[in-house]
């Protein structure tokens, strides 16, 4: 009797909490709702008014882009069905005639022109202005035809248009960006439904979509800042797809028996920059020694779970212009020591390595250790991200001595990464090499693809021979997904829901 009483006393709260749990966690029978855990909520759903993954993960499902990239990374038609370059500076695009915005209004060439004008308007101050300001004119030049004029020949035009989300003129032009952000209307496979501030954004399937329709009736994007919590959500079945895991958490997902790891090498190139404007790094042999001292294989295999791919050029295979057969510095600490011993002025003082918590500190510390091992004195200088960014974007004389960073232009074009990091006119560049400048300028407006690729290969070889900058690896991005979710992540870090599928 006593025992049953005690059992009853325990059973009640357990049953109660179970009841609560079941009502909270019961999944729908068919996969109606896909739940995605992002890091933060989007900053804005106006596609022209922000620049961060948590925003474009969502809005790229609400809006169509001018062109897109398929899973293999090739540029494919989306709103523009075909395009023809009619002169060095003019390209004619044919616009799809069967697309309607979510309010039922057809998408026209006028909307495309308005979109270009909106994002290139300096008063509008789009953070993406720099990606589109080479376009100086957009006009309707026929039925469903738009001609874009660029400031000089601009081979990266299509690569940039992959990110140009088309907005409806009749709506966006009549409201402020803040108002449009509250109720974004696009033409994409999902329709904006609601935004519960700080909690989640919900989108629902567009049944009238012109292309591949989405597999889920609705998708909920939630803000879950802690990565361990995102993994717990995945393992508990409370989330179907979670973003931005590190290698430890990826391991946890793989060993956990629930959910799987999806990974792809992005277009982010990790590099090590050395300030060659200042002593002692103005000596090419010291820079070469650093190149030989960094054990990239140890970093990739030992720290990063083997996911990233080592690269020897300031490009990744996801970029146009990736050249085979370029060999970088092999790991050879002996040679590094020899080079340092042979220096005219041996580096006595500590050399500062600038970093910010955003970067993987394990990699930063490993590099510090590797450089110490060959006899250099390196100290790590940590700042918050905004300060780090400001310090980087200055003249070489004031810039940090050593920098570990990762670069993405979100365009998969070499101009977007090599020009800012190697051209002497750029705030980011520590390199002052007239020949490299001339080649970068030539490549920037070279319309012949083969010639252009050859130019970038030459620049990469030149940068390597003087150790101007050290390419390290192509960074990987790691997602966790439910077992039943079929999806191939892409290098441009987009979550296109209508390319996913669900198998029970």
């Amino acid at each position, binding site marked *: 009797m006593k025992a049953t009483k005690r059992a009853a006393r325990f059973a009640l709260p357990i049953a109660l909490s179970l009841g609560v749990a079941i009502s909270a966690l019961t999944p729908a029978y068919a996969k109606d709702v896909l739940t995605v855990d992002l890091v933060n909520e989007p900053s*804005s759903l106006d596609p022209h008014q*922000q620049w961060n993954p948590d925003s474009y993960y969502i809005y790229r499902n609400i809006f169509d882009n001018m062109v897109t990239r398929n899973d293999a990374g090739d540029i494919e038609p989306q709103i523009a069905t075909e395009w023809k370059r009619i002169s060095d500076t003019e390209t004619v695009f044919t616009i799809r005639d069967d697309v309607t915005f979510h309010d039922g209004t057809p998408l026209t060439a006028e909307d495309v022109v308005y979109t270009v004008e909106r994002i290139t308007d300096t008063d509008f101050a789009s953070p993406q202005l720099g990606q589109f300001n080479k376009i100086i004119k957009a006009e309707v030049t026929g039925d469903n035809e738009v001609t874009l004029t660029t400031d000089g020949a601009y081979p990266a035009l299509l690569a940039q248009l992959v990110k140009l989300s088309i907005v409806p003129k009749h709506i966006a032009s009549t409201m402020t960006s803040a108002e449009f952000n509250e109720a974004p209307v696009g033409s994409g496979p999902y329709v904006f439904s609601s935004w519960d*501030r700080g909690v989640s954004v919900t989108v629902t399937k567009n049944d009238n979509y012109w292309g591949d329709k989405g597999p889920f009736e609705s998708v909920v994007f939630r803000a879950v800042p802690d990565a361990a919590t995102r993994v717990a959500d995945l393992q508990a079945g409370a989330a179907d797809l979670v973003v931005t895991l590190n290698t430890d958490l990826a391991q946890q997902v793989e060993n956990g028996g629930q959910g799987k790891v999806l990974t792809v090498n992005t277009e982010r190139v990790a590099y090590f920059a050395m300030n060659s404007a200042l002593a002692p790094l103005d000596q090419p042999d010291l820079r070469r020694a650093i190149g030989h001292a960094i054990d990239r294989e140890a970093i990739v295999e030992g720290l990063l779970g083997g996911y990233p791919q080592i690269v020897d050029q300031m490009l990744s295979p996801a970029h146009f212009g990736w050249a085979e057969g370029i060999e970088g510095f092999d790991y050879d600490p002996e040679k590094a020591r020899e080079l340092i011993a042979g220096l005219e002025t041996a580096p006595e003082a500590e050399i500062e390595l600038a970093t910010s918590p955003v970067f993987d500190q394990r990699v930063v510390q490993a590099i510090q250790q590797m450089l110490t091992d060959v006899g250099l004195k390196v100290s790590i200088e940590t700042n918050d991200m905004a300060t780090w960014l400001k310090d980087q974007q200055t003249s070489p004389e004031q810039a940090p001595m050593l920098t570990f960073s990762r670069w993405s232009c979100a365009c998969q074009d070499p101009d977007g990464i090599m020009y800012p990091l190697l051209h002497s006119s750029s705030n980011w560049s520590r390199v002052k090499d007239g020949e490299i400048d001339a080649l970068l300028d030539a490549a920037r407006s070279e319309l012949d693809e083969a010639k252009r690729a050859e130019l970038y290969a030459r620049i990469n070889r030149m940068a390597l021979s003087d150790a101007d900058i050290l390419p390290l690896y192509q960074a990987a991005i790691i997602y966790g997904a439910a077992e039943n979710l079929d999806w191939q992540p892409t290098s441009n870090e987009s979550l296109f829901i209508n390319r996913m599928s669900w198998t029970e």
Partner: protein
Amino acid sequence: MSVFLLQRLGQALVAIFGVMTLVFFIQRLTGDPTYLLVPETATQADIDALRRSLGLDQPLVVQYVNYLWDMLRLDFGTSYVQNVAVTEIIMSRLPYTLQLTGGALLVAFVIGLPVGLAMAIWRRYRATNLLMGVVLGAQSMPTFWSGILMIMVFGVWLRWLPPSGSGSFSHLIMPSIALGLLSMATYARIARSSILDEMSKDYIRSARARGVTTGRLVGKHLIRNSLIPVISISALEISQLLAGAVIVETVFAWPGLGQLTVQSVQARDFVVVQGIVLLGAFVTISVNLVADILYSVVDPRIRKGGRA
């Protein structure tokens, strides 16, 4: 009493003005938010254009005067990052923070008070010391660890509770416990010493002599008289909890103000940080005022003193 209140209100206004000024200048000392708002590929011209549109190109004094003028009109500005009115952002987060703080206080109170009471009454038994050890242990666990532990046990293995997020009562349970554990031991300690204090007083001894039972003694006299320090510590604990909520909210993806604060500071979203800090100052000052008033409700001696 009302003169006293007016005086306190005046002090409060001065304090809030001070906070407003401090938060304005300290934030601007940390540098420029525009670098975080543009992609790496942005040119200096893009950065300048954005800075102009945010009004950050103005001299600091002009920015400060504009800011004070806006505050006077109760216009708290628009977030740099989200392009949404700060009041809207904060008001959408505030209910979550209130729920969580309430839940945590309840947990701390419901566990801490009985523990303190038990330790005072049965102070001669060694087992009660053990109890304090447990409570202190619970307080010493960092929330980013205990929170994840709870998520793993109750969310992933047992699946009794949703692992993170918000929206139902069951979502509130784990974050409240994680946060409540932080204050529990404080409550237990304060309750213990305050009860011990009361127990040694004459009226208790005479009550015992009159033959009042222990239950009645504790329920009717002891607890009520020992509550004053507990209430005043609550005022302090609320601000403590708001600070602790930063981590708990991040771990449990609880969309409260703590999470918003961290994100806004990191993004240098000055306008949002100003709003939150101002709200925090307002709450801290009001809570202290309310505690003063509550003393007088619980303890007639203060009430009488106030009138005189």
